């Protein structure tokens, strides 16, 4: 029995998971939600490295796969190294080194997720807290455009609406929960107040709340985004009356009309609420270490996503150096996709662009990206079969454990293998030229 393992599924990084291991296999998982449990128990894996030959993926050795991957990256003028959300920071470090080495662009899944949140934070900063602070203090919680009941199943019990802490001994009973969304989600069913807004009206609704909080309600129209002014005034009053308030937000606001401007506005609302009471705000990060790649990239390059290393010095300009922009403009000529399924999650035109360039995939699982990959390298699952560091949605670093052995190498080891092959092939080429 392994106690207090960290679940490597979502940005909650629940660290109270007990796992029964027997004969080198996971037999039983306790405390985890269904999503986490399914990941830790394990399912359908890629078994061997593969290289595409005559249109078909054929089994190959790891070394052959590393060499082919290195060859593709070296031949490319501007390769994209994309993904990184479901692997360790140790792998991210090697990935950044590889991007520097081959002169590529490194981007994470944040680009199709909380990338707009990052840009909002660049505009306004992030008034936040660790999740335990919310658990111990928050008497008012707003979930905006997110649905933890289905996407982060243990969030409410461990950290937010239903958790108990020092100043919140009554748990759910002592809290006011407001859910803002375009549809009545399962999270909304647990709310004291569900506010249904018209799709794409987040910016207007937040603006109205800012006016009401600032005491300038006279400029607010009678109806904003399908919500009555009276309702909005009621919400604004609830927010101001909080002793400690917290806003959690998700993709419903980052990828609806307004995008990063919505986040900019929400961050401003929270900053202003601090003139009246205590308020914090936090993005509901999806993949378990999408926060970690942002942290590692920031301390290594100065920027948290979409970093272009083709010029020697790191360069960042979202809209220019983000994965989807590059692919839509067909501005990259090879891609390494690691710990993410780009084909399933990218807009159609960008996914199509991937089909026209050589793709290297590093992943434990087969997914639609596998279908168009030139090289496929299976890896151990971090947090189950490999150790490593991950950053929770609140920025807290935790060490993931290895629960069982795997014959497969970790992402980190694979990247080191590719790096070594890059060095080897460069040396070979230099010798040939000499």
């Amino acid at each position, binding site marked *: 029995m392994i106690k207090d393992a960290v679940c490597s599924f979502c940005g909650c990084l629940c660290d109270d998971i007990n796992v029964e291991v027997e004969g080198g296999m996971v037999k039983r998982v306790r405390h985890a939600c269904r999503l986490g449990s399914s990941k830790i128990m394990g399912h359908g894996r890629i078994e061997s490295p593969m290289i595409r030959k005559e249109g078909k993926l054929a089994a190959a050795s790891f070394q052959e796969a590393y060499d082919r991957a290195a060859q593709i990256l070296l031949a490319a003028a501007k390769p994209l190294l994309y993904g990184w959300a479901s692997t360790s920071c140790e792998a991210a470090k090697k990935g950044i080194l590889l991007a520097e080495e081959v002169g590529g662009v490194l981007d994470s899944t944040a680009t199709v997720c909380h990338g707009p949140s990052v840009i909002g934070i660049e505009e306004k900063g992030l008034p936040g807290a660790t999740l335990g602070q919310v658990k111990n203090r928050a008497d008012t919680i707003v979930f905006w455009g997110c649905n933890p009941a289905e996407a982060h199943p243990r969030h409410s019990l461990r950290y937010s609406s239903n958790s108990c802490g020092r100043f919140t001994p009554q748990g759910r009973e002592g809290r006011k929960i407001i859910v803002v969304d375009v549809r009545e989600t399962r999270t909304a069913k647990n709310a004291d107040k569900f506010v249904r807004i018209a799709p794409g009206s987040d910016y207007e609704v937040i603006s109205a709340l800012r006016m009401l909080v600032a005491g300038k309600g006279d400029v607010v129209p009678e109806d904003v985004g399908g919500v009555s002014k009276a309702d909005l005034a009621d919400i604004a009053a609830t927010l101001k009356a909080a002793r400690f308030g917290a806003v959690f937000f998700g993709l419903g606001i980052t990828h609806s009309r307004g995008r990063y401007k919505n986040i900019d506005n929400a961050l401003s609302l929270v900053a202003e609420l601090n003139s009246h009471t205590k308020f914090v705000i936090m993005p509901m990060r999806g993949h378990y270490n999408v926060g970690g790649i942002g942290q590692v990239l920031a301390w290594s390059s100065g920027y948290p996503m979409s970093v272009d290393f083709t010029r020697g010095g790191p360069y960042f300009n979202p809209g220019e150096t983000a994965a989807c922009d590059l692919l839509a403009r067909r501005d990259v000529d090879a891609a390494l996709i690691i710990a993410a399924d780009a084909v399933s999650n990218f807009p159609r035109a960008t996914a199509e662009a991937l089909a026209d360039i050589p793709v290297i995939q590093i992943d434990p699982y087969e997914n639609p990206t596998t279908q168009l990959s030139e090289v496929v390298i299976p890896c151990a699952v971090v947090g189950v079969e490999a150790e490593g560091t991950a950053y929770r949605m609140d920025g807290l*670093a935790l060490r993931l454990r290895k629960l069982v052995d795997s014959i497969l190498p970790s992402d980190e080891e694979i990247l080191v293998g590719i790096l070594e092959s890059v060095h080897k092939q460069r040396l070979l080429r230099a010798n040939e030229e000499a």
Partner: protein
Amino acid sequence: MIVKGGIVYDPANGLYGEEMDLFIDQGRMVEQAKGEEIDARGLLVMPGGVDAHSHIAGKKVNTGRIMRPDDARQGTEPRTAVCRPSTGYTVPNCYAMGYRYARMGYTTAFEAATPILEARHTHEELEEIPIIDKGALTLFGSNWQVMECVRDKDLSKLAAYVAWGLRAARGYGVKIVNPGGGEAWGFGANVKGINDPVPNFDVTPAEIIMGLAQANEMLNLPHSIHLHFNNVGKPGNYTTALETLDLLKDIKPSRMRQIVHVAHMQFSAYGGTSWRDFESKAPVIADYFNCHNHATMDMGQLLFGSATTMTADAPLEYGNARLTHNKWSNHDIELEESSGVVPMVYFRKMLVNAVQWAVGLELALLVKDPWKVLMTTDHPNGSPFVNYPEVVTLLMSKSKRDAEMATLHEQVPKRTVLGGIERELDWTDIAIMTRAAPARILGLEDKGHLGPGADGDVSIYNLRPEEVDTSQDHALVKKALANAKYTIKGGVLVSKEGRILAAPPGRTFWVDAAVPQADTDRLMIDLEEKFAKYYSIQIANYAVQDAYLPHAKVIRAGLPVPLQEVA
């Protein structure tokens, strides 16, 4: 390695500009050695620089980077055969930190504030900083367990917790920031003075400071408590500084060092009742330091231009954000701390900023004993550390100060006494304030000097101390200090005239203090309850694992632990 013919300033060993050869073998200073010769004939030679207070790693530094892509763009340098790429000015990336310190002749820097809960992140970044040796001070000032031990007057349990916390954080010393204020900020409030009770905890900042100072001495830690006062950055706060210092004057030190090190004194030496009548109280503070021997300080010098303020004093950052209408990040850390980050620009025509600039210099010039004052900018709060040469030249040249003063807000001469200070520091003073004193204050025995057994960290500058007139030739001095002719770290030539030649990993110092098992046992009952009820993670996942410190240097301290008691 032999450093030949330099003019050596090694004040810890009584050398004040003597021409001599230095020898390094296996990374340490020795009496005799062979090998590579470095020609330092006639040049200024000092031990490698030591920065005892700088924000170089961890969550708040990375938050600064993430919210400031504008800053990252200011310092881009491409990758080289030796170096990873550099970015940033006030919040450089990890690699730039190592290279830029090394270029200036600095070989050691300590991160000034890390919450235990987030220490893993700090060590991830420290490990990525090349070349320099480092350590991280651990935050205890608004910690629930600390406040409860203080409330219960259970000093031995408090000492056990400090030892446990340092071990969990792989921390080097006890940092206290706006004691109690971090807890009050949990509900958006603050403490207003050292006797203002902390809400819900029935203790005062004064009691927290006293308790932690006593525990620090009980544990015989190499460093004293490292204190960021209450009311930092506010007009009239010099009284809080004096009251706090006076609290501590009768505590007996466990080692030959101060009882308290005051962080960035400049930000706590203000008079006036508001920003309108804001003025310097540096002379009063300096007088206190001249009359007492239990306290040391670092300047926290402010320079004009861009900075990023970052501190565990979260209410202060909220105030900065409201004052400047700038972007604001805040980060509360459950059961332990709060913190904030706000970008800032300091202007020479803005009276408050100009007075702040003068206050830092006044402190360093009016305190007579250079062993009590460290040269810092509280990087990146007052200015980024790359501007240290500017600060040094201001301290060495009255004419430079006068020229600067002439460009400032016209009220500055009325609000400060800087214009009347004739003192110009010499190379001995500078070697103390940037090398010998920070090492002694931190309790780093092998740093800050060049005696046999010391670390082989040497900086050699393209300056002839016997010829250069530091008072007049300040431009020349500044240029020479910005890029050492040679920087030697652990016997390796790492930098030459601004070019990085090698980037070996540096070590990370942390303090492992022993305490009686019985005290730890009593403590663990409290901690297990806290983790079960209040923390959002399990106690088993809390402490920093050794994997994060592959180049650790453990310093032992603690109580003389008796032999195992018979049950």
